[in-house]
């Protein structure tokens, strides 16, 4: 079983309500869910999509076909009817869109009318729609009813009852009228999955890594992280501040870090562009900070609500001067959670800026997981504070040390003074101009610390047979689609996936000799959601290696499973 529900309509029509409810109830009912959104940069009108794929086995990418098309407007029908599977159904409210379709694949459900009749108001037509879809796939309402009860708890029993009645009416109507519906959705034994998107996973990861200060300026697709942190601020004592601009954001976060707490900021590429000077400051003053760079198609404003992997090289080399950094590119919300934690750990351990780089696609896709394990989280307090600080005889912020890492004291907690300076400085943190001190400090920051950071980096994940003839490589958010495509092609070819989620320092081959996989394969393919092959550049700059084939997509949309399979198959076939 592997079905796709596609909901289309204008911004403001409630796609997110319907889509969100369906995803949640399907995952809670024990199905694997993969949902993604496709929306325009406007608040009302236009044309948006919410796609939910669900199945009884792991799924990690979007498909191009829809089994159920929920059309909230006429445009959705016009644009997407061609995507319907053979046994697919288009469900719509003929009264609302003022048009009736007679072909058998159309199912008219009077969402508005049902809502008014059963719930007393058109407001509930989304509830009717969810009920109808459940009727179409022959699923019971129980799980949805639970969700309704919880969601409207604060609004009182009457609202709950009206919604329940509306859901039931929608369900009954569809069950009755959809004679052509032949969807088979067997019950699962699974007790329900966790459903989470990339933005929340990063936020949750930050929270659970002890992040106490998050500041930023709204910018799609990074706003979700700011929203998440904001929603937890009071409960968990996190200072969340919307700054006047992104320059302030990174500098304020560095102030917070200096003052002794774990701090984070984030933006899209354009906002990050304004943080670049501050990033270089972090490098010089050696303060830990985590920066989320959520990519969208550029340059400049580009396509604000779409997706691209276009800021990788920028993130790697941003900032004047030379200093170490770590860059993590999660491929799934789960990886986002754990890598955010790793980013915090490494940032503080080595007193460097560390990055989570993702994109609109990952930020907005919801995935199901069995669950996150908080025991796997790293939390070491690397600060010099409390007794240890008090007992320190002499404190120098940039004291030379065996590994280049100096004690990170918290100012104000002892008589020791903590001095950081954006100029080149001596061990105490005061400005210097002489060449010798400069050399020592460059060596401390770069030559001593960099190899240690590099050692922390995990090698790429390989999924496939031992001696693959074809290796498909990728990084970040293409994880799911590559994995699923390769999984499907594995019966036809000796093909494997090599996915990089820890990008910089570029992993060495000590722990896993992934380079020989590439060297020995007959065909290597690099899949990237950009036009210039930025990851290929990183690989070449790091290893000299060039991939055989590049598959790139730069129209602002993510890869679709069926398309990628087709492309890979095309190249593999020619072998």
């Amino acid at each position, binding site marked *: 079983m592997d079905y796709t529900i596609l909901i289309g309509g204008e911004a403001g029509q409630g796609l997110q309500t319907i889509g969100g409810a369906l995803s949640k109830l399907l995952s809670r009912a024990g199905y694997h869910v993969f949902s993604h959104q496709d929306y325009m940069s406007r608040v009302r009108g236009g044309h948006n999509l919410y796609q939910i794929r669900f199945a009884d086995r792991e799924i990690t990418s979007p498909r191009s076909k829809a089994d159920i098309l929920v059309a909230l407007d006429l445009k959705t029908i016009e644009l997407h009817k061609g995507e319907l599977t053979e046994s697919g159904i288009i469900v719509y409210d003929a009264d609302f869109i003022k048009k009736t379709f007679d072909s058998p694949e159309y199912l008219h459900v009077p969402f508005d009318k049902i809502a008014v009749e059963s719930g007393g108001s058109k407001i509930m037509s989304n509830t009717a729609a969810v009920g109808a879809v459940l009727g179409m796939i022959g699923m019971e309402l129980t799980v949805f009813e639970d969700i309704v009860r919880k969601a409207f708890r604060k609004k009182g029993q009457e609202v709950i009852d009206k919604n329940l009645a509306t859901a039931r009416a929608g369900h009954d109507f569809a069950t009755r009228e959809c004679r052509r519906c032949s969807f088979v959705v067997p019950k699962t034994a699974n007790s329900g999955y966790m*459903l989470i998107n990339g933005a929340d996973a990063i936020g949750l990861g930050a929270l659970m890594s002890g992040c106490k200060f998050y500041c930023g300026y709204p910018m799609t697709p990074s706003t979700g992280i700011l929203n998440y942190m904001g929603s937890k*601020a009071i409960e968990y004592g996190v200072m969340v501040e919307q700054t006047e601009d992104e320059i302030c954001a990174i500098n304020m976060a560095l102030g917070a870090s200096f003052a002794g707490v774990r701090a984070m900021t984030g933006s899209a590429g354009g906002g990050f562009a304004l943080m670049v000077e501050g990033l270089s400051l972090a490098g010089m003053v050696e303060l830990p900070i985590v920066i989320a760079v959520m990519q969208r198609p550029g340059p400049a404003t580009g396509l604000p609500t779409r997706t691209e992997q276009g800021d990788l090289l920028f993130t790697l080399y941003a900032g004047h001067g030379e200093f170490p950094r770590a860059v993590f590119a999660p491929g799934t919300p789960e990886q986002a959670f754990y890598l955010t934690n790793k980013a915090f750990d490494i940032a503080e351990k080595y007193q460097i800026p560390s990055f989570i780089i993702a994109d609109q696609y990952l930020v907005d896709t919801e995935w199901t997981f069995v669950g996150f394990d908080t025991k796997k989280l790293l939390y070491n307090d690397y600060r010099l504070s409390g007794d240890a600080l008090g007992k320190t005889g002499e404190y120098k912020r940039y004291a030379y040390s065996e590994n280049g890492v100096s004690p990170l004291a918290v100012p104000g907690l002892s008589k020791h003074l903590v*001095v950081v300076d954006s100029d080149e400085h001596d061990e105490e943190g005061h400005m210097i101009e002489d060449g010798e001190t400069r050399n020592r400090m460059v060596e401390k920051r770069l030559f001593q610390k960099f190899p240690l950071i590099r050692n922390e980096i995990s090698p790429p994940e390989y999924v496939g047979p031992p001696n693959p003839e074809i290796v498909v490589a990728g990084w970040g958010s293409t994880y799911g689609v590559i994995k699923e495509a390769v999984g499907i092609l594995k019966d036809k070819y000796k093909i494997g996936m090599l996915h990089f989620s820890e990008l910089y320092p570029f992993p060495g081959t000590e722990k896993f000799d992934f380079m020989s996989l590439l060297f020995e394969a007959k065909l290597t393919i690099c899949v990237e959601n950009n036009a210039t092959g930025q990851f290929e550049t990183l690989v070449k700059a790091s290893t000299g290696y060039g991939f055989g084939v590049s598959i790139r997509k730069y129209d602002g949309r993510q890869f679709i499973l069926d398309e990628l399979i087709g492309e890979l198959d095309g190249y593999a076939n020619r072998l």
Partner: protein
Amino acid sequence: MATLTDYKGQVPAWCPGCGDFGILNALKATLVEMNIEPHEVVLVSGIGQAAKLPHYAKGNTFNGLHGRALPPATGIKLVNHNLHVIVTTGDGDCYGEGGNHLMHAIRRNVNIKVFVHDNQIYGLTKGQASPTTLEGTLSKTQPFGVHANPFNPIAVAIALDCSFVARAYTAEPELLKSVMKEAINHKGFALVDILQPCVTFNKVNTYKWYQERCYHIDKAYNPYDRVEAFKLSLEPFTEKIALGVIYKHDKPAFEDYISIIKDTPLVKQPFQLEKMEKELLNFY
């Protein structure tokens, strides 16, 4: 008891006679007189001659980027509001490159103190016009002369309802110290514009020039009257310059609204992962 010796820093690299010395001395004396110890202070600065001050005194120090002293100062104060956060900055640093942060920091009213060394010039970069440079001034980088209206920090701060606005002059140490003290004691954001001759590059606004124009605000003056304060701020700068506290507004500081730090500074709050476990449930 803190002494002046405790506040002795590195040897200043300023030009002999520079007005920055007076500000440095006044600041050290103020902190000593207020019995504040170096480790209770964070000196935050950007880049410029003025911004080098923290190295020439003693305290916890965040010497950041040109124009960007206020954001880290805000971050520091929000994380540990027990610290005295003092920003030492220049007219270019604070009113030029850093103008946006100034406006919004004033709006936030975080309890930090901003001491601007206003020499009406870019000193460290050798004599370009700053936002406060007088109209008509010619320089290498102002070939047509300065024609932007000189920035009036006092008027703008009053318009932004800054909770404490004052002007002082480096060559009047007593007044300078008393203004600094009042600023530090004030609860909320304090902006002190300190006139500071740059003996090397500013040949117009010299000690003599300031001396001839500066006067002390009358004791009877009521700094709580915003419109009067605004009027005072409009006195033609090239004719007379009022020194003292020009505007004051008692209101809660930003920190007072942040419920989570009411009892304990953020930096002293422990991280408790156990309490967060339940967050995972929201995703089921």
